[in-house]
């Protein structure tokens, strides 16, 4: 509200890689326009060489995240009217990731850290074994379910100060995934997850300042999962697990 709807928007878009500058485009302002709509309009009508990423346009794939007026956001589900700052719109690539071109980042470190945190399922049975029923009511399954809808958008990773300070820190998304696996009774090596997140740069580096929770577009709470990991790893360390 408050912002007067003008005919066109002046949109500043980052051009270049680490070295570069903002370029301003005049974009027609429409009702119900998303930030991704704006970027797409620029690419189709003003600057065909503009590099950016998206796929689903409906908040499923997690590929469209950018920094919008200073905050990391999923651009396909962010309405321009929600984020206009005195009529101003400034779009940059996500923070805390290597830049490739314009609005595109290299997400390799983000996904490598999922592996470092053992954020992948280790089966405990094969397809030839009978299905083991999993109660949807158990506290563990509920904890896993609460974190399972991550779309890998890296918004939380870009919002986390500790990632910025410590390049070894695996970050909220990887730890959120690790937390879901620790609570997944079908996982064959849950202790291995606890070991992995107890390394330097693991869950104990988190400052619990909840920036990830504040920014996660699908409303997940990595902070809570990380606190859970701290609790479980502390218990394991107390019990002499090595």
């Amino acid at each position: 509200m408050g912002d007067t709807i003008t005919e066109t928007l002046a949109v500043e878009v980052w051009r270049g890689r680490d070295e570069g500058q903002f370029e301003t485009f005049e974009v027609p302002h429409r009702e119900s326009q998303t930030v991704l709509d704006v970027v797409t309009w620029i690419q189709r009508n003003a600057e065909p060489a503009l590099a950016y990423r998206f796929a689903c346009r409906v908040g499923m794939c997690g590929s469209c995240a950018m920094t919008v007026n200073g905050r990391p956001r999923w651009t396909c589900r962010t309405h321009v009217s929600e984020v206009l700052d005195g009529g101003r719109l400034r779009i940059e690539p996500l923070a805390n990731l290597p830049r490739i071109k314009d609005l595109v980042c290299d997400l390799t470190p983000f996904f490598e850290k999922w592996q470092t945190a053992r954020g992948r399922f280790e089966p405990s049975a094969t397809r030839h074994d009978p299905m083991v029923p999993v109660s949807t009511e158990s506290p563990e399954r509920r904890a896993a379910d609460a974190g399972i809808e991550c779309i890998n958008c890296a918004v939380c990773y870009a919002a986390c100060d500790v990632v910025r300070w410590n390049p070894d820190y695996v970050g909220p998304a990887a730890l959120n995934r690790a937390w879901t696996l620790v609570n997944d009774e079908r996982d064959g090596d849950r202790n291995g997850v606890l070991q992995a997140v107890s390394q330097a740069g693991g869950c104990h580096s988190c400052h619990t300042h909840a920036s990830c929770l504040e920014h996660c577009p699908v409303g997940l709470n990595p902070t809570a999962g990380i606190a859970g990991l701290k609790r479980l790893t502390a218990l394991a360390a107390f019990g002499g697990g090595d």
Partner: protein
Amino acid sequence: MLEARLYLLQRATALLLAPLVVVHLVVILLAVRGGLSAAEILARTQGSTVWAAFYGVFVIAVALHAPIGLRNLLGEWLGWRDGSRDLAVLVFGLALLGLGLRAVWGVTT
């Protein structure tokens, strides 16, 4: 599990230090009354096993708590994360322990 143990140790010592610091400060404020000389302080503390134990625990908790926090600070603010950092904070912790226990010994014996 080094990180997990350090994390736990830092929390546990913080838990211990919270009441100790409060008692330390309150006693300073109350014991001063109308001014206090070094001789008067020593007269109260010398031979007191209670104060020796109190400040002995205090010093040990500080010598564990402070180096762990310093280690995190050095890692995040200065990017110093290799083994030399651990050595440096270990020396720092031992120095705190040595100086602290020496002071406790000095005023209670």
